[in-house]
């Protein structure tokens, strides 16, 4: 029941109709909180779901936090256990809107759009405004969206212990890349 309600609100919220939905299951989200001259603190995720309503530019994405892969296995373990606490908060989501979006505007050439919305991570939700994103429609009819923004670790209630404070940046660069296919 809870689920049905949730899905109903989700679909009504997104205003999805079969014709206007573009989707990917293989989006990429990567973040980096490296500090120069220390080991890189960087991870990427290649199974991110993203949906866009091409009629009004509404945009939703879901990241299963455990899917972030680091080069260093111990760093991955610490990220999951101490920072993201992915057992407690397995999902990160972004729900928002691409401003003044319309399919007619899209071309093969990348164009700059702005996205507003709410990012939820580690149980905290924060409003993001004017996130820059390059959007184009490629020759296979896929909508390609890419860009990056800065997120502040303290905004998401992530405490970086003093011992490693100089090795992890508080401003985390988050990059995203989606190729969405018409559903």
């Amino acid at each position, binding site marked *: 029941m809870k689920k049905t309600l*949730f899905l109903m609100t989700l679909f009504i919220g997104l205003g999805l109709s079969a014709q206007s939905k573009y989707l990917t*299951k*293989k989006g990429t989200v990567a973040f980096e909180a490296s500090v120069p001259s220390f080991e890189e603190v960087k991870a990427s995720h290649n199974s991110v779901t993203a949906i866009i309503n091409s009629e009004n530019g509404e945009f939703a994405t879901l990241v*299963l936090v*455990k899917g972030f892969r680091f080069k260093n*296995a111990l760093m991955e373990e610490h990220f999951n256990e101490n920072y993201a606490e992915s*057992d407690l908060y397995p*999902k990160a989501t972004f729900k928002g809107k691409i401003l003044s979006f319309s399919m007619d505007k899209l071309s093969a050439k990348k164009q700059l759009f702005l996205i507003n919305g709410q990012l939820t991570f580690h149980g905290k939700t924060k409003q993001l405004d004017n996130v820059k994103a390059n959007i184009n429609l490629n020759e296979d009819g896929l909508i390609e969206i890419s860009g990056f923004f800065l997120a502040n670790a303290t905004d998401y209630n992530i405490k970086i212990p003093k011992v490693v404070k100089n090795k992890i940046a508080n401003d985390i660069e988050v990059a995203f890349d989606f190729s969405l296919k018409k559903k």
Partner: protein
Amino acid sequence: MGKNRKTRISIIALIIVVLIVIIGYNYIYQDHRNIEKEKATFSLSADEISAEFSKDPDTAEKKYLNKTVEIYGTITELNPMDMTLNNNVYGAFNISLTATTSYHINSKIKIKGRCIGYDDLLEQVKLDQCTISD
């Protein structure tokens, strides 16, 4: 004699330091889990695991998150690096599927991977680091 004892102590100290460095290095740069070689903690059908997640996500998360699971079902979507079973379990592979398998849509299959959670947007359970087990 005193000199001899000193050398012995410094040799022991050196060995201890080397050991600590080796252990420390191996700890910091330990290998990633090898899901392919791990024995699956659970083995069940795609319909069963997805039903558990849609009915009670919290309990299912506690049970399956980060665990190696074996899932069997019918391929409903097949791409070079991923496949979907019974429309409700999505598995991402690290190696390209086209080169290694002769599977196609509607094939019965069993895959092993690490459960990373439930995707409510798609209503699918997601696995990563998958391999084909049968």
